[in-house]
């Protein structure tokens, strides 16, 4: 079976060691399956085949059951999150303040639906229920950062800013690689 989502996660990925440390810290029985999956998703951003196999073996749970639990809970995801995961709050207050329109705008601008990630891996889109900041409705979080009282033009500006930030990061990383390359020669 091929699993395109697993590309990039190898068995020697250092995050497995972190996950193992968590499992060995009193979470090594099947009773802790959900807690361990939470930790795994925190570390990897999503729960691909390799990670589920690893959890299954560590806890002695059949992989099919791990997969059953992962697909049951909305919180767990099989798709990788983007560099900037955008979460649109669809709680009552945000919804009343136009969160639906904001979501549509993101969908159009990014060309993806909730639960998906852009082909360049930069953005993923999701919705959530109430982040507890109803006074700031409508609220959007980006990688845990809260943006409140968002208008449609704010939303577009946000995407543009994030794109710029990513481009800048990439240029910096490219420069660093070039420098390292230069030094090594």
């Amino acid at each position: 079976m091929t699993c395109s989502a697993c590309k990039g996660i190898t068995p020697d990925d250092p995050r497995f060691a972190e996950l193992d440390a968590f499992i060995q810290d009193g979470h090594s029985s099947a009773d802790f399956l959900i807690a361990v999956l939470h930790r795994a998703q925190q570390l990897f951003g999503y729960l691909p085949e390799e990670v589920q196999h690893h959890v299954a073996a560590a806890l002695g749970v059949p992989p099919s059951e791990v997969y059953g639990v992962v697909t049951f809970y909305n919180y767990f995801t099989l798709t990788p999150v983007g560099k900037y995961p955008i979460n649109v709050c669809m709680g009552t207050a945000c919804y009343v303040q136009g969160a639906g329109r904001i979501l549509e705008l993101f969908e159009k601008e990014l060309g993806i639906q909730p639960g998906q990630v852009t082909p360049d891996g930069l953005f993923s889109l999701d919705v959530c229920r109430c982040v507890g900041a109803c006074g700031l409705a409508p609220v959007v979080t980006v990688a845990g950062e809260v943006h409140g009282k968002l208008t449609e033009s704010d939303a577009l500006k946000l995407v543009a800013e994030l794109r710029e930030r990513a481009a800048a990061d990439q240029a910096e990383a490219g420069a660093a690689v070039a420098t390292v390359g230069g030094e090594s020669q």
Partner: protein
Amino acid sequence: MINLTIDRRPVSVEPGTTILEAARQNGIRIPTLCYLKEINQIGACRMCLVEVEGARGLQTACTVPCTEGMVVRTNTPTVREARKLVLELLLSDHNIECPTCLRASNCELMQLAHDHGVSQIPLQGAHHEAHLDVGSGAIAVDSSKCVLCQRCVAVCREVQGVSAISVTGRGFESRVSPFFDVSLSEAACALCGQCTLVCPTGALTEFDETEAVWRALLDPNKHVVVQTAPAIRVSIGEPFGLPPGSVSTGQMVAGLRRLGFDQVFDTVFSADLTIMEEATELIQRLQSGGPLPLITSCSPGWIKYAEHFFPGVLENLSSCKSPQQMFGALAKTYYAEKSGIDPANIVVVSIMPCTAKKYEANRPEMNSSGYQDVDYVLTTRELARMFRQAGIHLPDLPEEEFDSPLGIGTGAGTIFGTTGGVMEAALRTAAAWLEPDSPSPKIEFQEVRGIPFQVREATVSLNGTSLNVAVANGLAAAGWLMEQVSTGQKDYHFIEIMGCPGGCIGGGGQPIPARGPEALDEVRLARIASLYTIDERMTLRRSHENPAIQQLYAEYLEKPGSERAHQLLHTHYHARVPAGVRRR
């Protein structure tokens, strides 16, 4: 004892008994679609709702234990209405193309709907998306008929220890599927088919190949031969209303002839041949120091399971092909030459109690005759359907004999159909070979006769050599035994493993008991008893005494373990890592 009242009658039950079991013990059958005693008591289907005095709302009888003084009512207007509503809800999201379903004749859902007077399906609503999976060529999955009872999941996990499937997703997206929703053909599934025996509907069935066999039978250029596994003769009567375990060998042969098979042969013949090769292999391994234990390889579900989960024991597996495959290889070589028929025109059909046999016949290496050795494998259930289509009511037929020479078998080959049978058959021949001067060599080895779900161990003395042997049936038991062997906690010379509880008589392709899965225990025991009765009544009870086998070696194979025997009758195994195998 706990005293309670069920439907105004006082009853006493052991502490811990559920309401559903207490009712059954007292002649009240509370309907259920998901219950399997001890392994699936989850209240999923909601059919077993009952009234319990003082309890809030209706209770699921399969999950609630009886308590002292409890007052239970299983048949009130409220209960009947609730059950009917449950059925209406289930049917609102069910593929109701019932007449076209393989389970039309024994669907538990249809029976309950009928019993409960569901005369229309008034509820309209969302539907699960239908997923079909026939990729394995052995088991067909149709999620549009699934009621999510989880019996299959429970059997796969608890009885077989495989856990190839689980309920995935939620709500209208939930369904039973393997890890990452792959096809069963790519999953950790052994294709044993135990799930098809407990599925209350047509969601899990054998992959039906009857049409292909009909076409072969109608083709005037084809010479179609059939072999029947030992377990079929004690179960094929059941779909025709005969009691479980009824011996129908002669009628089955007559029926097969009427279907149009050119020759009706017996897998018992090649079971005897398996013993010749396997007993030789055992003696060689004992004399040359291994690898031991030698483990039997007749059960294709067990082989696939071992390839997935225990690659370390593959060298211990007997290199002997299963009787089905030995038969196929010989039908297209020895038999073809003897009868002057071009093997290209021979079609070999097997009647097997097994879904995994379909997979085995299609393994790419099973072509030592130069052709696919076995062309089609039909389960007992498919044969019963072919008989029906042909208007054959088995009990009405006269008894007829198998054809020669591939239809001649002994009692030893016959008991291959039960757990412990291969072991006993091998010991009978090994005893005769190792103790040639013994005036009365031992024939019956009661100590290795298998019991469903149990691992049996024995020490057998043959000509002064003590052999430690073990017999396991069902893959969970097999897995346990292999753990013991792999970790060096147990030391055996010879192990028999059958993938299904009770051995082949309990195979995943066998008739589904009329009373549903709760009758399986009783049905398995009846079939086992009948195989031993057939054996007892036979004059020839040891494989090496089979004259057709002796002739085969004299004319064609030379001797057991010869080069030609190896080319035609032996094989090798591959470690496999399908999706969802727990790495050990």
